């Protein structure tokens, strides 16, 4: 008998068996649940997007139906007997049988594939690429447990699993949980007291509303977004120098605080610059994609690293919004998911048209001052308006540094005719520009100046290249020098993290009336650049407050408001052509491509512009199947510690399936339509549910049934994140500086951490309460992030990372036990215990526990703390040298205080304290 006939016989035999053993599956086969797993696990690694062994790929139907290299068809719809696939998987010879070097497929699997081909071998879209159903019906379950509709979905699955929900957590545990979840901080003492004092069914909701309205809400969610956006205060790569991009972090905090709808949040970050007449803040939002690394190393190819940044933008955008691992499509079609090689470069084409080009100055940038600084600038400008005749409006309004005309002015405006002026000009804020790197011989003219009563002239400058000189001439560029001014070298050039503007001045003879002044810069030793010239200032004894204004102006000029890198589209005549990179090699170009989105997803509306703005609008188009699902899942994961789809970063076929598919779709659909993309509404929906409010205690039985809490028969119990942990220690001890917004700070860090990197920057601990600001403001250097962050599982932020893998290590214990911040927190907490906690040690210990956990310790726990207190007080009483080592010889150095510090240190290390319960 020929092999083929044998196979036909075998298959029909199997078919009959199928009929006997699996009668229910004589019905239609479901590709996604029954077939796709078989193909993914057994076939696609050799017959998918990467390898097409034997000329066969089973990723797309049209490919799978093509003849293979052998000329045979792997799959012939409706004709199992002609389908080579079925012959090969059931082959008697292990050499011929597919998959090779593996166990053969089970009879059930073979049967399913046979039936599937018999029914026409239909491919079905993977669940995550299917459109959201806007009308998901709520499960028909009833129970007094249900508080919100969300609970219905949870209860239905619990019932299916034979599980029942846990009782509600006690109110104070719940208050701490929801505070940490919504603001990243434990509730304040006052909040706890008011919560306890006014018990009512509405108290919880009132607390939730207060937390949602807190300015700390935005800080907590900015932390999440910073990991995704790969935020850092440095440029990355070898030297990893400073980057000024904290204003973007402020933008994110503010956006969350204002509850900016997530669609707008998306559009402004991806394409704020392409909106009509974008505001300063919309431009700032685009710094989101300037968080890519920038390589300043000598000898590197800027284009290579520009390309690498653009690729990172594609990957990051698709990971954050689409939960899609598009990165592998860079080199070849996706091995498992329906994304083609070319489609990566169509997405690339959206991003390939921005002006940034891996330049050391991070061009293009936006100059921004803080609101407070801007107010001060305003004051100075109005002072100028009162004292000077040149209208402010004549100043250029452009934000960008590559303007060909260079302007500069000081409290007294002056127009500049400057030749030659190399490089870009600088700008400090609205109306304050200055000259960068002016070269030897540059002459600046100031016209029509009223010099009546003016008796001195000051120049404000920066310059590190040896001593420069300014010659002052009156009325004629070649006139005799009126006076000369020496410019001693200063410590810094612009662009370093601390500006150090200096002032040099000279008396000039009083000239009555209107004149022109010419300032000529020179430097004998370095003709390339003499100085950064901020402006000059004329002083006359008559303007009484001039000195003060000048002082203020100089202060302002020393603020590192800086240039935030932003996105800016190239003009049409300068736009780049995008080509496929063969096998991902940026030097090997394939076909030219144009902006477009992957075929498997919602189509790109024809009325959308084919640029980043169009892409951003497409991402948040209600028909996009992924964005709402992926985003809702991210917020869910932050609250419950595990996503409804566990693989936040991968909604593709290799990712995990949703535990509650209907609930995910219902939440996603509500997020778009009912909640209109308002994150606060979404979060309130979640935290008001009975599901969220459950106690997190677990029985051995439930733990065995559901170790990871996928079915939500209990509340979340998760170790705090690095930020929450440190913030909580600072908050409970009263050290926390609750200031919102602002530049990054450098809290205490062990010496020598940064020495490992080339000496480009120095860790200079911040002064005063800045050391105790919330952890998200800690200066983030990508090559050496803050050690506590790294010890508690933060990523380095070189690339987008969706999930922090929670570990439990001895180095974490050493951090919370011994790190100087945690010790300072213990000292401050001990102080509060002593001062506010009552007269007996026992009361003081309970108070310390209360300050961190918002509730009294159980009597057993209190007894254990008492015992430890007695041990330590005996120790410090008997060993005064230990006491002195801990506290020095001050008058407050008592064994009692020393013991309280140790108890506070213990409290800050308790599992229940470092865990959200």
């Amino acid at each position, binding site marked *: 008998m020929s092999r083929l006939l044998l196979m036909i016989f075998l298959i029909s035999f199997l078919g009959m068996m199928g009929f006997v053993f699996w009668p229910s599956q004589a019905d239609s086969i479901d590709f996604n649940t029954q077939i796709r797993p078989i193909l993914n696990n057994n076939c696609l690694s050799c017959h998918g997007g990467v390898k097409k062994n034997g000329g066969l790929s089973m990723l797309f139907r049209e490919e799978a139906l093509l003849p293979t290299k052998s000329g045979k068809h792997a799959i012939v719809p409706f004709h199992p007997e002609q389908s080579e696939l079925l012959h090969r998987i059931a082959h008697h010879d292990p050499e011929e049988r597919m998959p090779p070097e593996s166990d053969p497929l089970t009879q059930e699997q073979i049967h399913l594939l046979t039936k599937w081909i018999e029914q026409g071998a239909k491919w079905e879209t993977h669940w995550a690429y299917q459109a959201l159903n806007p009308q998901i019906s709520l499960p028909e379950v009833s129970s007094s447990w249900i508080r919100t509709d969300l609970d219905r979905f949870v209860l239905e699955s619990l019932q299916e699993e034979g599980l029942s929900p846990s009782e509600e957590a006690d109110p104070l545990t719940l208050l701490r949980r929801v505070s940490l979840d919504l603001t990243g901080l434990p509730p304040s003492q006052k909040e706890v007291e008011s919560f306890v004092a006014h018990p009512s069914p509405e108290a919880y909701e009132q607390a939730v509303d207060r937390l949602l309205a807190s300015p700390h809400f935005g800080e907590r969610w900015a932390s999440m977004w910073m990991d995704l956006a790969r935020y850092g205060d440095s440029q990355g790569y070898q030297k990893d120098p400073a980057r000024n991009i904290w204003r973007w972090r402020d933008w994110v905090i503010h956006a969350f605080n204002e509850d900016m709808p997530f669609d707008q949040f998306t559009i402004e970050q991806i394409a704020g610059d392409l909106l009509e007449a974008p505001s300063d803040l919309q431009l700032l939002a685009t710094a989101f994609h300037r968080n890519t690394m920038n390589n300043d*190393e000598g000898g590197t190819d800027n284009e290579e690293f520009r390309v690498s940044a653009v690729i990172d933008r594609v990957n990051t955008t698709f990971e954050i919004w689409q939960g*899609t691992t598009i990165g592998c499509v860079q080199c070849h079609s996706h091995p498992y998911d329906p994304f083609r090689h070319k489609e990566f470069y169509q997405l690339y084409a959206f991003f390939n048209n921005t002006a940034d080009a891996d330049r050391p100055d991070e061009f293009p940038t936006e100059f921004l001052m803080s609101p407070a600084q801007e107010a001060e600038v305003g004051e100075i400008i109005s002072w100028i308006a009162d004292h000077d005749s040149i209208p402010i409006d004549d100043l250029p309004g452009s934000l960008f540094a590559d303007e060909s005309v260079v302007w500069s002015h000081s409290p007294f405006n002056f127009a500049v005719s400057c030749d030659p002026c190399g490089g870009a000009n600088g700008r400090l804020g609205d109306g304050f520009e200055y000259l960068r790197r002016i070269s030897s011989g540059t002459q600046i003219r100031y016209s029509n100046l009223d010099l009546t009563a003016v008796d001195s002239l000051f120049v404000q400058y920066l310059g590190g290249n040896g001593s420069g000189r300014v010659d002052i001439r009156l009325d004629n560029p070649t006139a005799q020098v009126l006076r000369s001014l020496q410019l001693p070298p200063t410590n810094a050039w612009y662009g370093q993290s601390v500006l150090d503007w200096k002032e040099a001045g000279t008396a000039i003879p009083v000239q009555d009336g209107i004149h022109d002044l010419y300032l000529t810069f020179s430097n004998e030793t370095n003709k390339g650049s003499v100085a950064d010239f901020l402006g000059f200032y004329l002083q006359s004894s008559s303007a009484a407050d001039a000195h003060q204004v000048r002082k203020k102006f100089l202060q302002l000029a020393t603020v590192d408001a800086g240039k935030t890198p932003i996105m800016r589209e190239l003009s049409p005549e300068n736009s780049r052509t995008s080509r496929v990179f063969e096998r991902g090699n940026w030097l090997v170009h394939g076909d030219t491509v144009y902006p477009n989105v992957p075929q498997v997803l919602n189509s790109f509306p024809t009325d959308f512009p084919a640029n980043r703005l169009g892409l951003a609008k497409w991402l948040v188009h209600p028909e996009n199947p992924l964005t709402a699902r992926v985003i809702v899942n991210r917020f869910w994961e932050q609250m419950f510690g595990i996503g409804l789809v566990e693989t936040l970063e*991968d909604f593709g076929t290799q990712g995990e399936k949703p535990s509650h598919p209907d609930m995910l779709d219902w939440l996603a659909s509500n997020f778009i339509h009912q909640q209109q993309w308002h994150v606060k509404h979404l979060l309130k929906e979640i935290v008001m549910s009975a599901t969220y409010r459950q106690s997190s205690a*677990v029985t051995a039985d439930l733990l065995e049934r559901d170790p990871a809490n996928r079915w939500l028969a209990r509340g979340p119990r998760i170790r705090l994140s690095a930020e929450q942990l440190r913030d909580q220690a600072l908050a409970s001890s009263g050290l926390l500086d609750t200031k919102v917004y602002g530049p990054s700070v450098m809290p205490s860090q062990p010496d020598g951490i940064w020495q490992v990197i080339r000496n480009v920057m120095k860790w200079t601990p911040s002064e005063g309460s800045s050391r105790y600001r919330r952890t998200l403001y800690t200066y983030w250097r990508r090559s050496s992030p803050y050690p506590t962050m790294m010890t508690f599982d933060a990523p*380095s932020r070189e690339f987008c990372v969706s999930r922090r893998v929670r570990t439990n290590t001895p180095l974490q214990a050493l951090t919370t036990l011994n790190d100087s911040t945690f*010790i300072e927190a213990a000292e401050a907490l001990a102080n509060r215990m002593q001062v506010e906690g009552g007269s007996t040690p026992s009361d003081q210990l309970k108070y310390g526990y209360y300050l961190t956990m918002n509730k009294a310790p159980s009597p057993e726990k209190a007894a254990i703390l008492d015992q430890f207190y007695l041990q*330590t007080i005996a120790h410090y009483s008997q060993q005064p040298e230990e006491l002195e080592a801990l506290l020095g010889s001050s008058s407050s150095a008592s064994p009692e205080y020393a013991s309280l510090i140790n108890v506070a240190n213990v409290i800050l290390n308790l599992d229940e304290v470092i865990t959200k319960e």
Partner: protein
Amino acid sequence: MKDLFQELHEQHQAYLTRRHFVQKGLMGLGAMALGSLLGCGDQASNLSALKNPLIARAAQFAPKAKRIIFLHMAGAPSQLELFDFKPDLHKLDGQDCPDSFLEGKRFAFIEGVPKMLGPQTTFGRYGESGAYVSELFPHFKEVVDEVAFLKAVHTDEFNHAPAQLFMHTGFPRQGRPSMGAWVSYGLGSENANLPGFVVLVSGQSAPSAGKSAWGSGFLPSVYQGVQLRSQGDPVLNVSNPDGINRDIRKQAIETISQINQLQYQEVGDPEILSRISQYELAYRMQMTVPEAMDLSKEPAYIHELYGTQPGQTSFANNCLLARRLAERDVRFIQLFHRGWDSHGSNEFEALEGGFLKRCKEVDRPMMALIKDLKQRGLLDETLLIWGGEFGRTPMRENRGGKVAPFNGRDHHSEAFTMWMAGGGVKAGITYGETDEFGYFGIKDKVHVHDLQATILHQLGIHHEQLTYEFQGRRFRLTDVHGHVVHDILA
């Protein structure tokens, strides 16, 4: 007699089964680290791996080496003055470099047509193997019969930071896990009281690639190398604050654990038990780390052997520390000694200046480490690797088209010498050969990815199977390259 064919078949089946097991096993590790296997499979063991990601795990096949000591000479020493003896290069000394060396090549600093530079030292042949060693290594020549020289190693990179990253992460830019991180991820740590991957830095400063050379890249950060510092705490926060002594700390940890026990009884979260054990481990580390770092109790003859002086930051001290860590079953011990960048542009960077000092700094300790490991029976199970991130050119550097004030050589990626010893590598061999000027490898070349594949192989890991899924792709140390250099294996 058993049918040979049948035996072969059985062997093959056994191989396939083992390979299958190993492959699934390693993928499982990755999945466990991400917690994504929860809910299916063996939950208990998944949970325990989640709790302790550093728990020791079996290799894929019987390892020849239990641990690695990698002596990285950061800055890249000149192979032409140390091991790759090229008498013919003498003859060309001072002559123009032939075009064939320059065509299509990029150099870091050489411009135009440089002059050739003959060996700046003399060589001898030593040991039964008759290996060439420079007179600059009078001590090291005693142990050449323990060493396998790789004379034709080559790399893709010719600048320090990218080449160092390439050597340690298999990729020239930041973001990938280092070899030690991969090994910790794959095999865990044998010593629960010390980190499994430690880094010791000496010389001019830290290597130019910075911490990324021992980072965890996209692997969980728990796998990154822990730098044991010689100033301040050897491990961050390992010391108690002043005025909190070890007794008090012990009582504190007992107090924490007692309350945590109560909490466990109340809420049943097994994570609490794990936390209790991590605190106890932290307490033990506070003892074991300083103890391991304390050289003062080493006998005088050991100090003499290595040339160590307790309290210093030196390569000698770090070599002795490496032995102490090896004795304590630390899996991956990474040393960096920087200051080899002999361009000739100043005295420090000169073959007749800083280079000689560096040689003196490493010569005795290298010898001592090999002898000491051997006399303790540890050499067989410890794989030593020595080398820079690339080599130096046979041409004299002419930065800016000018004659440099000192003798120096530019960066050279085509061929350089590394050596390996112990850990299942053949002793007393020389593998690979360069042309008569030491420019190109002409026989038995070893690419950096091959070296990495070989190191993993000696630890019982198949380099193609130690993978981690990130951004939709399975990554590995050797990217899509690398072949085990079987010819050098014993």
